[in-house]
C-alpha cells in the first residue's frame, strides 16, 4: 500500500524529530556520570570521602563529645591479600587527632599492588572524617609473603552533625597495576 507523497514526507519529518529525542536521551545517560560524581562529592552521598591529606592545624577539640569510629576492611577478587584493621573501633573527641593501624599481608608468591578505596557510613558523616595521613593516598605494593603495617592518621571535625554518635569507615583493597 503506497502512501501519498506528502504523507511520506510528513512522516519522515516527524520521525527525524523523534530521533533527536533519542540522541538527547543517550547523551543524557553519559552526562549522568559526571553529574553523579558532582552530586556525590558536593553532598557526601554514598560515603565518598576525600582521598587527600587535610591539616589538623585549625581543628578545635570538643572534649564534651565522644564519637565512635568503627573500621571495616575487605579485599576485592584478584588481590591475594589478607587485610584487616588492628582495632575494630576507637572512641574519639571531635578534633582530636588519632592514629590507627591496619595490616596487610601478601599471601601469594608474586608481588602484588593494591589501592584502598574508603567509604563512610552514614553518608552525612563522610565529609567530616578528615585524613591527615593515610595508606590509601597512594597504591601499596607487597612482595610475596610480605606483611606491612598501614597507618591512618585522622580526626573527626567538630562540625559533625549532633545526631551522629557512630560512624563506620570501610576500606576495600582493589588490585592495581604494578608500577
Amino acid at each position: 500500500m503506497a502512501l501519498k507523497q506528502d504523507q511520506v514526507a510528513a512522516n519522515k519529518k516527524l520521525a527525524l524529530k523523534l530521533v533527536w529525542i533519542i540522541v538527547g536521551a543517550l547523551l543524557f545517560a553519559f552526562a549522568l556520570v559526571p553529574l553523579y560524581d558532582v552530586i556525590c562529592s558536593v553532598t557526601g552521598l554514598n560515603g565518598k570521602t576525600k582521598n587527600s591529606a587535610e591539616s589538623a592545624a585549625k581543628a578545635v577539640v570538643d572534649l564534651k563529645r565522644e564519637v565512635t569510629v568503627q573500621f571495616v576492611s575487605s579485599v576485592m577478587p584478584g588481590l591475594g591479600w589478607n587485610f584487616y584493621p588492628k582495632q575494630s573501633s576507637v572512641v574519639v573527641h571531635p578534633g582530636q587527632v588519632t592514629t590507627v593501624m591496619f595490616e596487610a599481608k601478601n599471601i601469594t608468591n608474586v608481588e602484588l599492588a593494591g589501592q584502598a578505596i574508603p567509604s563512610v557510613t552514614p553518608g552525612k558523616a563522610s565529609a567530616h572524617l578528615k585524613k591527615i595521613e593515610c595508606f590509601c593516598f597512594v597504591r601499596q605494593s607487597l612482595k610475596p609473603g610480605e606483611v606491612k603495617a598501614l597507618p591512618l592518621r585522622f580526626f573527626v571535625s567538630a562540625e559533625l552533625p549532633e545526631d551522629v554518635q557512630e560512624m563506620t569507615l570501610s576500606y576495600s583493597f582493589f588490585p592495581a597495576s604494578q608500577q
Partner: protein
Amino acid sequence: MSTTTVAHHDEHHDHPTGIMRWLTTTNHKDIGTMYLTFSLIMFLVGGSMILGIRAELFKPGLQLMNPEFFNQLIGVHALIMIFAALMPAATGFANWMLPLQIGAPDMALPRLNNWGFWILPPSAILLTLPFTLALFGVGDGALATGWTFYPPLSVQGGIGVDFAIFAVHLLGISSVLGSINIIVTIYNMRAPGMTLMKMPMFAWGWLITAFLLIATIPVLAGAVTMLLTDRHFGTHFFDAAGGGDPIMFQHLFWFFGHPEVYILLLPVWGFIPQILQTFSRKPMYGYKAQVYSLWAIGALAVVVWAHHFFTAGMPVPALLYFMYSTMAISLPLAVLFYCWIRTMWKGSMSFETPMLFTVGWIILFGVGGLTGLVLADVAADAQYHNSYFVVAHFHYTLFAGGIMGIMAGVYYWLPKMTGHMYNEKLGKLHFWLTAISFNVTFIPQFFVGLAGMPRRIPDYALQFAEFNMISSIGAFVLGLSQLLFVYIIISCVKGGQKATDKVWEGAEGLEWTLPSPPPYHSFTEQPVVK
C-alpha cells in the same frame, strides 16, 4: 493512493510468497502476526526455563543444577519474558490494531517496521546462545547476574554478559524503531475527524508507552555500554578502584527499569477498557480521566526509580522523596481502577473468555499494585527487599497485569485477525486453569518472602519446604495450561465457526467495521470520523 474499490485488492501479484513474503513484508498485519508469533514462542521458551528453576526449588537442597546455572536460568528467563515476550506482544497488537482502530491504511514507516521486527530473532539467539556454547566448552554459560546486570558481578562475569549486552542493544534498537513508528502513525495517520481526544484508549496507552521508550531505552543502552567498556576497554565507570561507583549503575539501570514496568503495562491499560465496554455493553466510564491518568503515570514513572534500591544506602530525605513519589503513582492508578469498575457498573455484562480474563486481570493486578505500596514503604522494604515477596509482587503485576492482559487481548481480537471464532469452552477452561494455578504458584511466595526467603538462591531453609513445593506444583500446572492456549490459537487460525464483522455484540470502534479477517490492505480510503 488508489481510490478504487477496496475489496478486490486482496490479491496482489507483486509481493513475494513463501518465506520471502515474511522477510520482506511491510504490511502491518503481516508484521503484527510475526511479532505475536515470536512473542508466543519466546513465552514458551522463557516459561520452560523457569520450570527448571521451580523443579530445583521443589525440594530444599541442590538436586538438578549448580548455583551458577540456576542464576543463568533466572536472568535469561526474566530478560526473555520482558523483552522478547511481553514487549513484542504489545508491539504486535500495535501493528495489527492501531491502523485499524485509527482508520489508517498502514503504519507510517513500513520499511522501518520490517527492520524493527527482524532485529528481534537475532537478539533472542544472542541471549540464549551462551547456553549452547557452554555445552561445547566455550565460555561458562549465559549471564548469571539476574536481569539487572548489577556490577561488580556483571563486570567479573563471563562471555554470557557480553552476549546479553549485545542482545539488549539490539532489543533496544528494535523497540526504539517500533516506538518512532507508532508515534508517527498516531500523530500523522489518524482518520479525518479523529481528534486526539477521540482516539481509542489503546492508541493513548501506546503513545505514552512509545514516548517512555524513546526517552529511557537509550539510558539503558548507555548503561550497558559503560559495562561493556568497563569489562574490555579499561574504563572505570562502575569500578570503585578506578574512581567509579557500582551504585551509579543501579541509578542508570532503574532510571530505565522503573519506566519499563509501565512500558509493559500501558498498552494493556489501553485495550482493557475497550474490552470492558464491549462486554458491559456501555461506553467506557471516564475517558478523559483515564487519558489524564495515563499521562500522570507516564510522567511519575521517570521520577521514582530509586525505590528499587532503598537498601543500597541513601540519605533520609532522598528515601522519603522516593517513598512518597512512588506512593503517589497509586493515585492515578486508583483513578484507572475506579473507571474500569465503573465501566462494568450496571452494565449488561456477559463473560466470554476475553471478559473473564479482563475481570480476573483487574483483581489480580490490583493485588500487584497493593503489594507494591507495601514495598514502597522504606521501613518495610528493608525487610522485604530481595526476598520472595518482591518476586510475588512483580509477578502479580507482570504475569497477571501483563501476560493475562495480553491473553484477554488475544481472545478479544483473535476472531477479527483470523476470521474464525476460537473454541469458547476451551478458552474458559484456559482462563480458570491459568488464574487458579497462577495463585497457587505465587501466593505461597508472598509468605515465604515475608518469612525471609531470599530470591535468586537455589537452596533454602527447611521451614520453607511446604510452601515451595506448593508453588512448584502451581508453576507446572500454570506452564502446562499454556499448551492449551497454543492449541486454541492454532485451531482458531486453522478454522472454526466463521466470525462476523462485529464479532462481539457490544463491540465499538473502526476495527469492527471491517470484515473478519480484514482485507490485506484496509482503509485505503480513510473513513471519516464525526
